[in-house]
């Protein structure tokens, strides 16, 4: 295919999962002979109809394909204004939308009606998004960690370490993680590796810290928001990654853990079940305790899941994901 130009409408260079996604996809696409123009969508702020109209009509350069990274929270009902003006102003230029969340009927329909192709990340999302769509998995960066001994020394940790990684929000199951570690694993450190989008702390994080002080005193270490350079150390120090999210459509933090080749114990929600082999799942609190005990006591089992994670990461590396995007773009042009 000859060189194509793509404009991706997305938040960028900010504390946001969609931003992190685009920061990985865009350079990978550019390595596949595409010029990728990022049209910056403001992550925060009360966006007016005028904002979306300006974004759709005056901020998008002349390119071959326009690709929207959609998430409900970014548009907050502005889909109607944005997509209708975008469709008008682009004429026949194809519009591709990646739905990072699905199953909100009205926005989904607006997006579908105005897009030439819609991408979702997995089969679960394909089912929930009731219109036609393509599955292109969320990419993974196969990455190396700092050796475990060195990483633990750097972080001042000793003994087994279980890590929960990502933005700290109420649906991420931190309570279960703290309770399990505090009540069942007195010799284990729980590394809470993450923070929030704009602040050092939220009220919720403060409450979690109070809970941790009561249930697991001295066992929980909070890192706060981390720069990317710190991640090899964080993952290097982790014997097991714990993913307790109660729901989700796809998870950049889970895939980052997989990308670092870590052994992951994850709640068996649909997006996780599709990755069986790359990680170990749990359904109930009892499963969680047993699974964690098994993984912490059995290095060979951990190694098996680490291998599984590496294989998944290779199969879904950003290069391969970019290739799939390029194929889709090619079909639309």
């Amino acid at each position, binding site marked *: 295919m000859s060189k194509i130009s793509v404009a991706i409408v997305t938040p*960028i*260079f900010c504390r946001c999962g969609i931003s992190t996604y685009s920061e990985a996809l*865009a*350079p990978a*696409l*550019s*390595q596949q002979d595409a*010029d*990728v*123009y*990022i*049209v*910056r969508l*403001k992550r*925060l*702020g*009360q*966006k*007016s109809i*005028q*904002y979306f109209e*300006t974004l759709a009509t*005056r*901020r*998008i*350069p*002349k390119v071959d394909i326009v690709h929207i990274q959609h998430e409900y929270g970014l548009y907050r009902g502005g889909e109607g204004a944005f997509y209708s003006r975008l469709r008008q102003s682009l004429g026949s230029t194809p519009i591709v939308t990646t739905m990072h969340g699905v199953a909100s009927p009205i926005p989904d329909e607006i997006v579908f009606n105005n897009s030439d192709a819609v991408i979702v990340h997995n089969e679960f999302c394909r089912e929930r998004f009731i219109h036609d769509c393509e599955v292109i998995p969320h990419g993974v960066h196969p990455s190396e960690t700092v050796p475990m001994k060195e990483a633990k020394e750097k972080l001042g940790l000793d003994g087994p370490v279980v890590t929960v990684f990502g933005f700290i929000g109420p649906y991420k199951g931190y309570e279960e993680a703290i309770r399990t570690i505090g009540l069942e694993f007195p010799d284990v450190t729980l590394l809470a590796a993450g923070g929030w989008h*704009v*602040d*050092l702390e939220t009220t919720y994080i403060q409450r979690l810290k109070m809970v941790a002080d009561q249930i697991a005193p001295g066992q929980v270490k909070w890192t706060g928001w981390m720069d990317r350079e710190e991640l090899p150390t964080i993952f290097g120090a982790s014997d097991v990654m714990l993913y307790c999210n109660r729901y989700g459509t796809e998870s950049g933090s889970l895939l980052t853990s997989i990308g670092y080749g870590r052994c992951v114990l994850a709640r068996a929600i649909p997006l996780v079940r599709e990755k069986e082999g790359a990680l170990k799942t749990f359904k109930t609190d009892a499963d969680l305790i047993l699974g964690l005990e098994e993984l912490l006591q059995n290095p060979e089992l951990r190694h098996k899941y680490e291998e599984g994670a590496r294989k998944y990461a290779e199969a879904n590396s950003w290069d391969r994901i970019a290739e799939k995007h390029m194929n889709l773009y090619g079909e639309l042009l």
Partner: protein
Amino acid sequence: MRLMILTDAMVVKTKPTAYGKVAFNIFKGIKDRHQVAHQPMLGSNKLGLFTYSDLLVYPSGDAEFGEDVIERNCLHLNADAVLTLKDLYVFSSMMQLPLEWIPYCPIDSSPISPGIIERLKYAFKVVSMSEFGYKELKKEGVESTLIPHGVGDEYRMLEDRALCRRRFHIKPDEFVIGFVGLNRMRKMIPRVIQVMTAVRELNPDVDVTGFLWTDVDKEVPLKPIILSHGMNEHIHWPNPEMYKQGIPENLMVELYNAFDCTICLGCEGFWMPGIESLATGTPIVAPDYAAAADRVGRGCGYKVKVKDWTYNNPVGVRQPIVDIMDAARKITKIINGDPEKTARRCLNEAKKYRWSKIIEKDWLPFLESAEVELRPLYRAGELIAWDQEIG
């Protein structure tokens, strides 16, 4: 980049504020490479959209600090970002607007108010204007780019300083301690008067006088204070109406040339008169606190000890109360020093504040790096900025 500058009026008033002057110089310096527009604050532009010397001037809106129309104006301009040059506590809704906000923020006290830090969390980039501000922000976990204000080339040491003195009715043998600034409580002008009095008492053989380039009738009534110190015959001040209207920039240059030193005793976010004074070869005296202290380079003035602190000001910030006698002794050192050597050092120090240098070394590289984040283009794995004109 398309940049909207929200600050005091740059062009529509006869007497620009320091912020207005700074913003106008930034505009002049970057306009060949970036498209700049301006929304003046404080209701300055009720005329509607107009162009003045290549500068697109947007309406001010009804809100005092222009927050009611800034989004609309930015969308009309299709601005990549909005640069604000104003104390941060004036903003109440900027953080909620979907704008890429670059506050060029004065920091004039330590610790920084949590209200300021809270606002900065929503900024796209933060620019600090002093070493003091940069360090204080860093302490609070806010990364910023340090870009000092600049001084225009018209600020220079004039050959005939005696003529400058005659213009302002200053006798040739007076030793003049100058003050330039608004009459605000936070500027601590009564203390400046006390220092002038103390220097006079310490040096009975010298005709020490003061020059208050301010409105003596404004926020703090200064005339009774001057009278109470018996300084009414030894302190000059302008007619309030003349001060209000302002005088041409070349006369301000002559005024600094007429001073023997320029003083500041309040807490400042930058202290523009400090660099204007240095650029005319006149030494400066500032409290050893906040950003004014950063202006005092080696051999071109003195930092005065802080004796105590006060919160007695409208915005409740911690302000220094300087040691009067220390200030008086340090000004005495200037009286007894070598004026030519001091002037040389001042002129040398001022070189780093020349606008041409600040624009080339600081503003243009900053805007270019911001542009890469505002309009990123990934080409063959490399990250550059895309040209908005492509649309």
